[in-house]
């Protein structure tokens, strides 16, 4: 069919997320293409699985609470020291 989306364009719309901002007609073409094309369905599935896996990886690899606590304490100590020395004139009245 003339003007139909091609696989090449589908992959670009998905990976760049352009499909999210596409118009209604484009999104309908996109859905229709996916219904008919198993290769593009596989591609979309791979992209989704990779995103989910990165979320899992980053969240389980999140720094442990002790590191976060120590960094927070060090930063706040620097803030209070800055206050005590009166540098920057940022002392707040309350």
């Amino acid at each position, binding site marked *: 069919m003339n003007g139909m989306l091609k696989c090449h364009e589908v992959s670009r719309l998905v990976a760049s997320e352009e499909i999210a901002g596409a118009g209604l007609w484009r999104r309908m073409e996109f859905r229709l293409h996916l219904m008919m094309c198993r290769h593009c369905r596989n591609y979309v599935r791979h992209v989704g*699985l*990779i995103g989910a896996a990165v979320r899992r990886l980053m969240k389980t690899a*999140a720094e442990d609470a002790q*590191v976060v606590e120590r960094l927070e304490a060090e930063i706040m100590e620097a803030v209070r020291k800055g206050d005590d020395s009166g540098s920057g004139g940022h002392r707040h009245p309350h």
Partner: protein
Amino acid sequence: MKGGEDQTTFSDPAFVERLRAGEAAAIEAVVHAYLPQILRAARGAGLDAQRAQDVTQSVFLTFIQSIGRFEGRSHVRTWLFGILYRKLSETWRAVKRENQADDIDDVMENRFAPDGTWARPPRAADQATLDAEIRAHLAACLDEVPQRQRLAFVLREVDGFSTAEICNVLEVTDTNLGVLLFRVRNRLRECLEKRSLKG
């Protein structure tokens, strides 16, 4: 969206004023809310644990020093991640130029026939196989991704930033961000497929 309450509180002009005045309690609230996210993003961009901690500390110290210039026009989180991005990109300058043309674009072009259909289609596999393959190779494949693409990807997929916020942090247009995301997703997909086929 995650952290919805904090997002609202931190946008409040009264809170922004307290921050600008350098009030310790206001700064502490921001540090407490965003330090874990900044640390995770630094790790996500490819820094090792120690360097990620150093950069995180440096981001907040710069934030505190420059707080008087914060006008509340962007969200405090965007301001913080902008500082992170500038610190990270100082170490990337050397590699930036070679990223202008990216070989992943050619790899993708070669996936398609001239009529726009797949010449080498993505591998079909069942869910369990794909999950296992991704789990086995994802960390190694992430290491092959240029840092700027990694950061864009992490902000999008892990932290759920909007397009506008990532564009603001990375100082790129919508179109540039689309290119970054296109490249990182395809680079990861190609790498995973190649490694899985090798076994």
